């Protein structure tokens, strides 16, 4: 693998000092003159008609500056994926009907928080309760309460795809395995709650917000406010975690804006932690029904899948993509010649489900890779052999049309199995009630979908401006949510330009100042925005090279820029300083500043949107996790002693950053597998607190080993693929499989609670 000056080095992140000194400005830190505090009134009923609302008493409270209801936010619905505008189903403030506990019905702006809260108490709302339904399978039955008119059986969206000959596949199979798996409701728990500040001034609305997608939320926001898009500016502040929970336009953002328009003052709304749990987004709880047919030697012949996604009360802008993406992950990471997949997203009267780190991959791979161990067990095969026999290889095209380019999947299996001590330990530690196992996953590297409709489906554009002092400013719409995109993009620019990292500045995530970027979701930033930045840098560099070549009487193709100097490769002594080249370029061009532009787009095959079959992403990643667990046979507690992880990352641009992201994925996967679960009772969330919703603490993390498997993806910037999302998925199946290895109990639902373990051991009823 080629060595670079900056790429591949664990340089300190460019925003680290600000964060370590408390100087980074998150949205709630923002204070504007005469800023008001906003608060939202929410439905206490899971399903009800709004009969009557009276805000008179609240309006009279001194210090209250405005109160708004559904009448003020208009009838236009909000959502996020422009191509599915006809499926946008959420109002900013409910006008006639509420569909879950927490649904927004009114908002208040007041001089301080105490007053705003008091005002909420004074708003009178009369509800007529309606029958509600909380389980997706119940919701699909005839006679179930109708949550949204026009959606038969409460099915929001359904994806069906079929390829090959499934019937023949089953007929030719030596054995057919059928299983059902279930995963629970979990939530993002970003440490920073959703916060927005809106200011309407001189006909312009500015929204400072904690978001992953400033451009994507601008259009629906402008639309619902009935403003032209150029009158709306969205600025992403420093974001304290997103994990997919901040990719959409939320009612609170609209309320902020409308309150600002009405009061003429800036308005800030920060969600409380309880609101954060109940009224933002959750991961989709899922039911996964698998039917796999295999040959005697373990080769998979056919796979049939039915995924039921519990969507909650609304489509949630991003929810519309859930079923499709679940079928995509069902196609990875093994070769499946014949497939039949059906996925449904169903309405229930509960908190809304959306995208969360991995977006159905953790659920799907928990099911799939538990299933693989079960199949291996029945066939009397080593689970590693079964996996490697069926593993996707470079250049493979899946039955669902995905074009796999680089792929180091088998290598990740080998490395992890060696590291976890497979040969010495698998099946051999039962006496100590310990077990080892692996779990695998495949993921997209750079979802090809821009949430907005864009010309030629371009997803990212970058501009680089060079300064005569020798530094560069990168303008990118990409949003850093903690994953380090600002640093990674700056490193890409620095490497391509041939200057040091401290000579690169960044302006990011402002719809007015930066060019378009689809947003930080679907693991696309390094790939898409990284490519755009690299191309912009190459463009700027080419302009310099043209001028330098003339001055040095050299061929532009023979020039190189490195270490702040542009020189002839054949004769390195001949060259000039980077800043001198910039000056020379401007002199030659009448003062015109050197500006480089780069764009990235990816062609999603149109058939993806019709038959569901076609290539979706420019590249794919693969990973294997290995767990060693010990089960306490008396309490049922599962302790993960060691976790090993190998990720087919293409190339690590900043290894420390990659490791931190992968550690984080393991932690989130651990929570998903063992500790986290949102419990509902009649639509009410029972544990919307950090006390009762158990995120792993420092004491709960096992000893980990992270193995980066580099294989240079040709279309990726410097060969780098995603690392922060696909890596959550292997944890669940690895732990579930290890528990089975330890005590022979197969648990087919998450979380793996001690009660489930004891029931499996028949120690409790």
């Amino acid at each position, binding site marked *: 693998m080629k060595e670079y000056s900056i790429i591949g080095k664990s340089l300190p992140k460019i*925003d*680290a000092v*600000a*964060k*370590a000194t408390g100087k980074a400005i998150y949205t709630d830190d923002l204070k504007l003159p005469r800023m008001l505090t906003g608060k939202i009134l929410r439905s206490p009923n899971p399903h009800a008609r709004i009969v009557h609302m009276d805000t008179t008493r609240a309006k009279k409270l001194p210090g209250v500056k405005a109160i708004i209801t559904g009448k003020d936010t208009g009838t236009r619905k909000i959502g996020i994926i422009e191509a599915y505008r006809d499926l946008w189903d959420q109002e900013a403030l409910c006008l006639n009907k509420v569909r879950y506990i927490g649904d927004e019905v009114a908002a208040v702006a007041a001089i301080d928080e105490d007053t705003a809260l008091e005002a909420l108490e004074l708003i009178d709302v009369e509800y007529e309760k309606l029958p509600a339904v909380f389980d997706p399978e119940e919701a699909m039955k005839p006679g179930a309460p109708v949550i949204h008119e026009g959606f038969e059986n409460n099915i929001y969206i359904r994806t069906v795809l079929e390829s090959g000959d499934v019937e023949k596949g089953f007929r030719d199979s030596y054995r057919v395995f059928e299983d059902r798996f279930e995963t629970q409701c979990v939530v993002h728990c970003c*440490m920073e709650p959703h916060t927005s500040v809106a200011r309407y001034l001189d006909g312009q609305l500015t929204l400072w917000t904690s978001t992953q997608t400033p451009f994507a939320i601008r259009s629906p926001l402008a639309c619902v406010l009935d403003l032209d898009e150029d009158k709306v500016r969205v600025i992403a502040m420093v974001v304290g975690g997103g994990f997919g929970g901040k990719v959409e336009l939320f009612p609170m953002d609209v309320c902020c804006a409308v309150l600002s328009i009405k009061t003429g003052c800036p308005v800030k709304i920060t969600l409380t932690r309880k609101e954060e749990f109940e009224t933002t987004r959750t991961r989709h709880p899922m039911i996964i029904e698998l039917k796999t047919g295999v040959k005697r030697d373990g080769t998979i012949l056919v796979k049939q899948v039915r995924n039921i996604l519990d969507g909650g009360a609304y489509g949630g802008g991003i929810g519309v993509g859930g079923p499709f993406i679940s079928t995509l992950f069902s196609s990875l990471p093994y070769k499946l010649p014949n497939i039949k997949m059906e996925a449904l997203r169903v309405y229930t009267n509960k908190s809304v489900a959306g995208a969360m780190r991995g977006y159905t991959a953790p659920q799907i791979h928990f099911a799939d890779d538990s299933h693989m161990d079960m199949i291996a067990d029945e066939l009397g095969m080593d689970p590693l052999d079964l996996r490697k026999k069926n593993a996707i290889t470079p250049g493979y095209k899946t039955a669902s049309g995905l074009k796999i380019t680089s792929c180091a999947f088998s290598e990740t299996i080998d490395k992890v199995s060696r590291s976890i001590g497979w040969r010495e330990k698998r099946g051999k530690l039962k006496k100590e009630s310990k077990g080892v196992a692996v779990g695998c996953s495949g993921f997209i590297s750079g979802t090809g979908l821009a949430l907005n409709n864009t010309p030629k489906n371009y997803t990212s554009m970058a501009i680089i401006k060079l300064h005569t002092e020798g530094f560069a400013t990168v303008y990118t719409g990409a949003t850093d949510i903690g994953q380090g995109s600002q640093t990674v993009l700056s490193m890409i620019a620095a490497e391509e330009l041939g200057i040091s990292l401290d000579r690169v500045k960044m302006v990011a995530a402002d719809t007015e100042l930066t060019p378009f970027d689809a947003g930080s979701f679907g693991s696309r930033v390094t790939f898409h925005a990284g490519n755009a930045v690299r191309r912009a840098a190459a463009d700027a560099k080419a302009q310099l090279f043209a001028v330098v070549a003339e001055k040095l009487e050299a061929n532009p193709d023979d020039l190189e820029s490195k270490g702040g100097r542009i020189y002839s490769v054949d004769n390195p002594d001949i060259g000039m300083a980077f800043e001198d080249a910039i000056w020379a370029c401007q002199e030659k061009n009448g003062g015109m500043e050197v500006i480089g532009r780069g764009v990235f787009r990816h062609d999603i095959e149109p058939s993806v949107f019709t038959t569901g079959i076609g290539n979706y992403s420019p590249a794919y990643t693969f990973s294997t996790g290995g767990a060693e667990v010990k089960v306490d046979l008396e309490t049922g507690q599962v302790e993960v002693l060691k976790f090993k992880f190998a990720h087919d990352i293409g190339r690590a641009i*900043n290894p420390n950053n990659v490791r931190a*992201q992968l550690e984080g994925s393991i*932690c989130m996967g651990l929570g998903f597998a063992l500790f986290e679960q949102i419990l509902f009772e009649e639509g009410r969330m029972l544990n919307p607190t950090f006390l009762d919703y158990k995120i792993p603490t*420092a004491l709960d993390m096992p000893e980990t080993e992270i193995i980066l498997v580099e294989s240079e993806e040709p279309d990726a910037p410097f060969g780098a693929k995603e690392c922060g999302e696909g890596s959550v998925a292997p944890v669940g199946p690895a732990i579930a499989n290890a528990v089975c290895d330890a005590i022979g109990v197969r648990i087919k639902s998450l979380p793996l609670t001690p009660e489930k373990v004891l029931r499996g051991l028949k120690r409790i009823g």
Partner: protein
Amino acid sequence: MAKNIIQLKVNGDSYQVLVKPNMTLLEILREELNFTGTKKGCNEGECGACTVILEGKPVCSCLVLALEAEGKEVVTIEGLANGDELHPLQKAFIDNGAIQCGFCTPGMILSAKALLDNNPRPTDIEIKEAIAGNICRCGGYNVIVNAIKTVTKQ
């Protein structure tokens, strides 16, 4: 509610602040004194993002009434660096990639500082116990523990 003027000592400086009884130390720091480095994560003492050092001990400032902090020494994240000179823990977090979204970072660093001020050579378990009350959703605990360890070796 009667308002009181109290004296607060934050990062070595004295401030006179007007407080209502139902204001917490966290609110005073963030809203009245503009020490926005201290974060509000849950407001119920369950996440540690609001950790400050009060009379030498780490506490959740969201559960300390402002009136109770009167006359006591408070150290926030803003009080760690000495001008341009960063505290060794800050440097360690930066150099070892222990900061992702950064929201838990101020509280995390202060918990670590309080530990090292009392116990300069803690074991791994002692480090983890000291930061067990600081939740990091980005999941960087092992990286954070390693960063803290680089300071203990000095």
